């Protein structure tokens, strides 16, 4: 049995070695993706192009504008002279945000009345618009807080000193500066591995079916299980190599901290590879041609990605979809890989996720083996 697995292995590696494109295809696109994601995938917005229209020309309004000017999230690209000019800046996309201080701003403040401030946002990219609005809110809050304290200090210094304030002390654990790159890179590693491994495995088996070599193998003494093991081990190795390369890129290039034990990650990765390999194999038993396999992968990989908690929180999904995520290996591996990278936790804490991956892998492998036996009928 072992010899036959070995012969399949030798053949698989020979084929991979022979394939000049393989080395390129296996390594370059995944690394490129990590680089692109590492740079591009971020929830933070810096230097939002901002137009300012100050119709009040007061000390207060100038202080507010200065607060925006000094904030790194905003970059003032235009001092508008009229409402029309400010709106035009949004229309022609030269600014994403326009801040309009109407005349009477300072007067209202001094009278203790609500002082209106108009903010125009280019909503065509609602994501960055929302993020920018959040920043605007924060700046304005800080400004009015400071103004109130200042005012109170001038009217009644004694009272001002006794004033109790609640200051929100935000200190996110594990990722103190909420660096979204730290958050994204581990997730990217998980999804890239998923796509690569599922595709490689599914195609490798379907290709044998298409070429007719599978029918040929069926009349050799090889058992379905031996064939499956022999065919998946190479992709397991490739998956591990890929993980290592991508992890090194994340830690050495993007400086994502690696706080955990590499062995825990190795265990998690092995179980994750087992379940993704089995998924690829199961797909391959359902498809007769590489085209079908391609379409199936395409339809599967996207939902797996969306339902993984990688970028959309699972807790905000409808109950039905939340249930579905329990069958998704990516979901568990995202937790594992983020926890190992950022929290440095061990096997004890990750046991539920590790067991879930093992269970998914075992079930899919069983399905693939059973279906494999019957595949000519």
């Amino acid at each position, binding site marked *: 049995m072992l010899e036959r697995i070995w*012969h399949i292995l030798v*053949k698989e590696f*020979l084929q991979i070695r022979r394939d000049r494109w393989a080395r390129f295809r296996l390594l370059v696109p995944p690394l490129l993706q990590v680089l692109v994601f590492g740079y591009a995938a971020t929830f933070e917005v810096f230097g939002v192009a901002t137009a300012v229209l100050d119709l009040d020309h007061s000390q207060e309004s100038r202080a507010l504008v200065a607060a925006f000017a000094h904030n790194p999230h905003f970059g003032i690209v235009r001092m508008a002279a009229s409402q029309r000019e400010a709106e035009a800046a949004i229309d022609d996309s030269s600014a994403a945000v326009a801040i309009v201080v109407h005349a009477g701003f300072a007067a209202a403040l001094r009278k203790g009345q609500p002082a209106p401030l108009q903010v125009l946002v280019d909503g065509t990219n609602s994501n960055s618009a929302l993020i920018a609005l959040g920043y605007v809110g924060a700046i304005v809050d800080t400004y009015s807080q400071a103004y109130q304290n200042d005012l109170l200090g001038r009217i009644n210094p004694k009272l001002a000193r006794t004033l109790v304030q609640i200051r929100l002390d935000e200190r996110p654990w594990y990722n103190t500066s909420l660096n979204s790159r730290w958050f994204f890179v581990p997730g990217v590693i998980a999804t890239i591995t998923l796509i690569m491994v599922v595709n490689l495995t599914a195609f490798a088996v379907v290709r044998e079916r298409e*070429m007719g070599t599978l029918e*040929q*193998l069926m*009349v050799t*003494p090889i058992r379905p299980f031996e064939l499956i093991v022999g065919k998946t081990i190479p992709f397991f190795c490739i998956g591990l190599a890929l993980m290592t390369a991508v992890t090194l890129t994340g830690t050495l290039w993007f400086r994502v901290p690696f706080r955990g034990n590499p062995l825990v990650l190795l265990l998690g990765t092995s179980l994750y590879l087992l379940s993704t390999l089995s998924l690829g194999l199961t797909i391959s038993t359902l498809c007769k041609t590489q085209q079908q396999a391609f379409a199936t992968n395409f339809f599967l990989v996207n939902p797996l990605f969306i339902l993984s908690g990688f970028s959309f929180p699972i807790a905000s999904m409808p109950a039905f979809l939340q249930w579905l995520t329990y069958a998704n290996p990516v979901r568990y591996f995202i937790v594992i890989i983020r926890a190992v990278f950022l929290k440095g936790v061990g096997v004890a804490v990750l046991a539920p996720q590790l067991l879930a991956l093992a269970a998914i892998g075992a079930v899919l492998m069983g399905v693939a083996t059973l279906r494999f036996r019957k595949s000519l*009928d």
Partner: protein
Amino acid sequence: MNANEITVAATGLTKRFGPLTAVDGLDLAVRRGEIFGLVGPDGAGKTTALRMFAAVMAPDAGRVSVGGVDVVAEPERVRERISYMPQRFGLYEDLTVDENIRFYAELFAVPRRLREQRAARLLAASSMERFRKRLAGQLSGGMKQKLGLACALVHAPSIVLLDEPTTGVDPLSRREFWQILYGLRAEGVTLLISTAYLDEAERCDRLALLHGGRMLYCDTPAALRARMPGALAEFATPAPRQLRDALQGRAGVLGVLLVGNGVHVHLDQAGRLAELERQLRDSGVPCDGARLVPPSIEDLFVALLGGAGTQP
């Protein structure tokens, strides 16, 4: 070892695909050391039958035994003693000729020395020694088939199932192919081979004619030919199509078939020939003479099936 020992046997073998019965109650007995041909038009059920013999497809009804082993009960034991070459042999196109042979030899645990001996002999017999380092994907269609045969034979099976092995093979290579098969027969190997080439069917020791999943006849080529009712006349002519059109539908003419060197006419009795020749001369169709000839399997097939789907 008995020369008349049955090595491949089927009784009531049936396979259905939905409403279609691809193989319908097939009874077959192949003797040790004979070349047994399965002949039939496209869709006759040849591939399906061979797949069931090779234990890659389970029958819906009936029994199959190969080498005394029940195929349905013990498929793995069957695999060790047979070789099955599918209609499209599964070669790894990104491996060389040598690597393909080696892979299949290793799966059957053929020792290295033996493997090299056999590979050398098989490749020499099919004039392929020069291409041992060539990738299988870069071989011509005929060479691929020959490599497939070499891979299928490298573990020295005692029963060989070949599904249309010479399709797409040039005449010279086909001769080499058959030399190899005759060599195997001489060693006592049993060969079950399907073919759509009717001239090839003549080379088999015995034949089964399949049509629509059923076996119509099973006998030696000579005995089958003797079954042909009436007589067969060959007309030599420079204008075969014109002659065919002139003869079709005349009294006593059962069928007309274009062949390489003229026209074969199936007559209800030999006595009709002289009368037909006279009629042709009167109608002015060019004809260089006619004579009675022994029917070929192709003529027989056309006579029996009305020419449905046969290849020339």
